[in-house]
């Protein structure tokens, strides 16, 4: 078992007791709630006559079902089912005294974008949300876990989850990212090497020079996709980059209190001589932009690599998955992904829907036009992100290039609102899942990539290597001065 890691320390501090079933009862420091997975849990709570144990540690917003156009957001929402979900959430938060970032609040957005930017997610916390991408918050050095509805009921009612400790794998990523290569490419590389179920039974601690050099947006993108690698959670030890980002955010205390918290944050960092269950090394030097060719995030290659043939895989399951993928995506092994026709470009989500992501994509779009056959959507991850982009004029670059500039939500990541693929459309997407049917059409095809690559694909109407097609200086994916979205 691991020892002296951040995971061990944070777990110990949040462990309430051991339960008769052998699991630990773990206190949850931050509970995030959205409209899709919570109504049933509130209902169960009511059935039992329980109250929300820690309403002040519970925050809600609405993201999955909300329309992303101003007209679409007028109440009641056009889709009666969406309206019912949103109303149910409004009622539940109201009755239980939970802070809610609703459509009118100016702070609404995807839970995993909103909580970090408001400073709700902090190092050394446990974070739970009825959403598998809760690992995102690990970017601050917290333990973020995605939970099911019955567990949401657990957290509402007791402030805790019942859980077993996992093994800790250190994922050491060294090297320097080249121009036009980003955090998204690192995490796709990690999943390529370790597999979509490589992380089962583990949490991932990401470290090494390539991770240390990343800004918070990049770190969030990496931790976000831990679940795509099969890990229940993923985290990065907090450092000055983390503390700088947190300073001045709405829910972060100032002055002396900040310094006191910082001591705690420093104390929960993994020790120099921490013991891991497992250490793997990934070389980030010289990796090319990554693109998925298949129907799970592990079916991914560098942009100039050939699409593999099923025979190249050792495991039977991988061979079968490759066959299915080639058929669904209509690929021939040996081709590269370059030149694969794109119908839709989608920029946003809890992976890549932050100010920095739009800024990077905007540099690629500057002075260029989206291919006339491409439908291009820019959907900020939160209303704060949208307003900050508008304040800086980034939205104008998108609009002039021919992108639709939308309001915040999950949108075409999973198409629970009106934003959906049609038929067998191909989507160049900055999201995290390329499962069949994910973007709303069972024949739809998703190609995951970084925001810069999405912008380039939008312009060219096909998958391209962003590094070749533009001579402008590409922004680097590493640490630069943070600007607070307010």
């Amino acid at each position: 078992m691991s020892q002296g890691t951040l995971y061990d320390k944070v777990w110990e501090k949040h462990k309430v007791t051991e339960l008769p079933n052998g699991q630990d009862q773990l206190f949850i420091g931050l509970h995030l709630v959205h409209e899709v997975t919570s109504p049933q849990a509130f209902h169960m709570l009511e059935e039992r006559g329980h109250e929300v144990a820690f309403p002040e540690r519970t925050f809600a917003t609405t993201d999955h079902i909300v329309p992303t156009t101003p007209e679409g957001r007028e109440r009641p929402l056009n889709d009666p089912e969406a309206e019912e979900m949103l109303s149910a959430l409004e009622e539940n938060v109201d009755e239980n005294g939970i802070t809610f970032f609703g459509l009118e609040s100016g702070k609404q957005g995807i839970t995993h974008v909103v909580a970090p930017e408001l400073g709700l997610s902090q190092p050394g916390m446990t974070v739970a949300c009825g959403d598998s991408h809760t690992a995102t918050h690990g970017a601050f050095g917290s333990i973020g876990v995605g939970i099911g509805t019955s567990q949401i009921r657990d957290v509402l009612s007791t402030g805790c989850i019942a859980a077993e400790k996992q093994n800790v794998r250190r994922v050491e990523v060294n090297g320097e990212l080249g121009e036009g290569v980003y955090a998204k490419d690192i995490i796709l590389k990690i999943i390529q090497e370790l597999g979509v179920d490589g992380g089962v039974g583990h949490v991932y601690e990401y470290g090494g020079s390539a991770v240390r050099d990343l800004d918070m947006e990049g770190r969030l993108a990496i931790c976000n996709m831990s679940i795509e690698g099969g890990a229940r959670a993923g985290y990065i030890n907090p450092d000055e980059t983390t503390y700088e980002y947190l300073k001045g955010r709405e829910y972060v205390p100032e002055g002396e209190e900040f310094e006191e918290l910082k001591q705690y944050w420093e104390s929960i960092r993994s020790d120099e001589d921490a013991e891991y269950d497992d250490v793997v090394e990934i070389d980030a030097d010289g990796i090319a932009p990554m693109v998925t060719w298949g129907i799970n995030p592990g079916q991914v290659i560098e942009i100039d690599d050939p699409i593999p043939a099923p025979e190249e895989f050792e495991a039977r399951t991988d061979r079968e998955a490759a066959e299915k993928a080639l058929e669904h995506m209509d690929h021939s092994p040996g081709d590269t992904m370059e030149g694969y026709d794109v119908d839709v470009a989608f920029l946003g989500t809890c992976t890549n829907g932050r100010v920095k992501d739009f800024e990077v994509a905007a540099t690629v779009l500057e002075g260029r036009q989206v291919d006339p056959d491409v439908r291009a959507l820019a959907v900020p991850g939160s209303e704060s992100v949208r307003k900050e982009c508008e304040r800086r004029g980034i939205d104008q670059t998108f609009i002039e290039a021919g992108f639709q500039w939308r309001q915040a939500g999950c949108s075409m990541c999973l198409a629970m609102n009106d934003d959906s693929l049609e038929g067998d459309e191909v989507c160049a997407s900055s999201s995290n899942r390329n499962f069949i049917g994910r973007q709303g059409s069972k024949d739809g095809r998703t190609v995951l990539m970084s925001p810069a690559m999405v912008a380039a694909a939008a312009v060219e109407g096909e998958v391209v290597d962003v590094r070749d097609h533009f001579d402008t200086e590409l922004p680097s994916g590493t640490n630069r001065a943070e600007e607070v979205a307010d």
Partner: protein
Amino acid sequence: MADDIEISEVGGTGVPIPGDDIDTDQILPARFMKEVTFDNMADYLFYDARRDDDGEFNDHPLNRFDGASIAVVNSNFGCGSSREHAPQAMMRWGVDGVVGESFAEIFRDNCKSLGIPAITASHEEVSALQEWIEDNPDGEIEIDVEAETVTYGDTVIEGNIDDAMKEALIDGIWDTTQLMYSNLSKVEETASKLPYVEEA
């Protein structure tokens, strides 16, 4: 108060759901999650896979093995999102237990929360059972939680059930809310020691 029940055995006829990495978007497509209760979820189970292009039921196993209680799946079943809608839909359709090569962790936890035993066995054993069901649609399959076995015809599979799940099911303590609810004062104590929690 929900009364827990001890679950030591589940059984009935089987339904094979072949394929690796079957994700929750296939089990329960997201567009059907727009309901505030789980009541209708059975109708949406494998919605797309079960229908042909005209929306008519095809020969998907769920259409052919109506009334089955034991689902038999392959590896990494239930990967993807944390939606409890997926096991809820299976439960409401009639599934009382799942045999598979492996399960995604959140899916397995969700099964535990619902009192659905999820037992793993090797690829060969699972494939053999899937074929047997095709030949014996009315054949009984039994999962013994305590012994961690799956019995059908003359065959007994020595499987594996996650320790926490096994204990929870046989002791009837799979309802974790109930387990943890009585510890509230301890929870407050733990919380009060955390520097980021303000005193109430």
